[in-house]
């Protein structure tokens, strides 16, 4: 059977089978006491889904639109199948929810506690992460510009910056809580320190990225320092800067959440995670993690979109 035929036949079949298994597993007769027949069905579905995905990923399409669609659908279907397995195994085998809640119960908990999640999101993301991220990135950028102007400072700061970025910076969280209090400024301070050094290192590297030829050209235009900085070196540094922005988007969220483990007012994603874990309300913890994942991916995605718009000239985006 060719890859195309296999994909065409098996993909809808496997999807239908998974849907059937999902409906089946939530019946009271099956949930928690699924028999061997059910597990055989799941195993068959597993094989079918694997074959279907294999067929899909070996498809050779001429149409670029269809190719993109298939390229996107393979990971999406794979992820959906993983969630299906999670749901079916947890519900079918009756895994207690203090060990592992099913995706459906996490989703219903997510929908039921939207106000709480919104408050946590505002506290952790809008206040701590965003303000810390802005201050950290901007100051890292500013110091990088200064360090680039003064070679002595650059040679002194860069090795230190590289050294610091290998350190567990997150450990300063208790100190920041002591200095800036329990509320969001202390978390923002942790985020500032965590995001500062990646920005510094990447910007300095980016400012050095302009080639000799381009610099000579600017020189022959009699361009001064500022002109060549703004017209040549900053644009060339943009991919590096965006790289730092992307690294920092994840670091900032991690920093804010972990800093909340060290003491917070009674709101915030890290606070909710630590308190609900202690109460063994794992569905709430997973809902909070889902929120963190959505926030993190959206943050990253927005930066990636801005990057695309700003560095459209870069070889990696040219088609």
């Amino acid at each position, binding site marked *: 059977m060719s890859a195309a035929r296999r994909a065409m036949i098996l993909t809808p079949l496997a999807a239908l089978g998974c849907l059937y298994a999902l409906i089946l597993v939530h019946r009271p007769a099956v949930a928690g006491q699924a028999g061997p027949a059910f597990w055989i069905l799941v195993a068959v579905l597993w094989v079918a889904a694997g074959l279907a*995905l*294999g067929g*899909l*990923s*070996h498809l050779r399409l001429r149409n670029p639109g269809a190719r993109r669609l298939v*390229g996107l659908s*393979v*990971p999406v*279907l*794979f*992820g959906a199948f993983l969630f299906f397995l999670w749901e079916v195994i947890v519900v079918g085998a009756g895994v207690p929810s*203090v*060990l*592992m809640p099913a995706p459906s119960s996490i989703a219903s908990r997510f929908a039921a506690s939207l106000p709480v999640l919104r408050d946590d999101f505002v506290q952790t993301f809008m206040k701590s992460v965003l303000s810390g991220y802005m201050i950290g990135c901007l100051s890292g950028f500013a110091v990088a510009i200064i360090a680039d102007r003064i070679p*002595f*400072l*650059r*040679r*002194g700061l*860069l*090795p*230190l910056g590289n*050294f610091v*970025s*290998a*350190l*567990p910076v*997150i*450990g*300063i*969280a*208790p*100190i920041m*809580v*002591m*200095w800036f209090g329990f509320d969001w400024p202390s978390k923002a301070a942790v985020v500032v320190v965590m995001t500062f050094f990646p920005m510094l290192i990447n910007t300095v590297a980016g400012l050095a990225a302009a080639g000799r030829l381009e610099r000579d050209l600017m020189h022959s235009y009699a361009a001064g320092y500022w002109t060549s900085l703004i017209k040549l070196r900053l644009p060339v540094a943009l991919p590096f800067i965006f790289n730092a922005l992307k690294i920092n*988007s*994840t670091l900032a969220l*991690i920093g804010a*959440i*972990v800093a909340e*483990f*060290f*003491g917070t007012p009674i709101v915030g*994603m*890290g606070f909710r*995670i*630590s308190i609900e*874990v202690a109460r*063994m309300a*794992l569905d709430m*913890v997973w809902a*909070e*993690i889902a929120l*963190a*994942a959505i926030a*993190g*991916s959206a*943050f*990253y995605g927005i930066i990636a979109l801005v990057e695309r718009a700003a560095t459209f000239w870069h070889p990696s985006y040219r088609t």
Partner: protein
Amino acid sequence: MTTEALTLPVRQARQKPSRLWQGNTGPVLVVVLAVVVLWYVAAIAMNWQGVTDAFERAGEQRSTGEILLATLEQERPMLPAPHQILIELKKTVIDTPVTSRRNLLFHGWVTLSSTLLGFALGSLLGVVLAVLIIHVKTLERSLMPWIISSQTIPILAIAPIIIVVLGSIGITGLFPKAIISAYLCFFPITISMVKGLTSPDIMQRDLMRTYSASRTQTFWKLRLPASLPYLFAGLKVAIAISLVGAIVGELPTGAQAGLGARLLAGSYYGQTIQIWAALFGAAILASSLVAIVSLGERIVNRRMGVRAA
């Protein structure tokens, strides 16, 4: 010829200042010195209020000089001075027996062991995943996007769940922390390994084909050696975040043992010097781990005949 003759004397003139300032050593020393000086100034400034308040409460009149000295010798300062941290490090590392819970080496060892176990597990997982990904196209198309997007979510938030869930089914101690570390550090290894294993260019792969080498032979003789520089770049990142994972993994269990526990206990009881000492311990641990990986990299490179760049 003429241009060379013209530029040479200028270059020599530039090289005149001592060699120290040519490299990075001099500037780094100056910056470190500046940080230490700033630290002392900040310590005096931040502790000033607390000291004057304490003297006022005691009803004592002190001169500025005495207050100045007192700011550097508080028991629970806002910001301890560097020498206080060094004294605390000496006290908790050398002066107490190694087996004692008050010894920082004991806690450092707890953290280090779970870091190393997690690092080993994560590296193994990372390398195996990378090898699978470059050989099975389905996995590359379906798994790779998920591995990459898994990095946009704050994975460390899952740490408490892993600790508590594994704890409730009876697995405690080293292993859950190691899992967090492994989870954090498989990613850079997988990514760099995939990059490294696919780094041999078409010419080299064609050469292997003209030798009629099998897939396995190509893997062992070409792809794997070519991937080693990338692997070590990944390992250096991985060992650093493996330590972060181990430290954060120690937080939810409520300060039993380890550097993370020292941080948490210090923040509960306001023992700032203890927190800073634990931080310094973690920093020393991190930098020596990275240094060891770099050393391994250099040894492997030399044995494979790579010239220092």
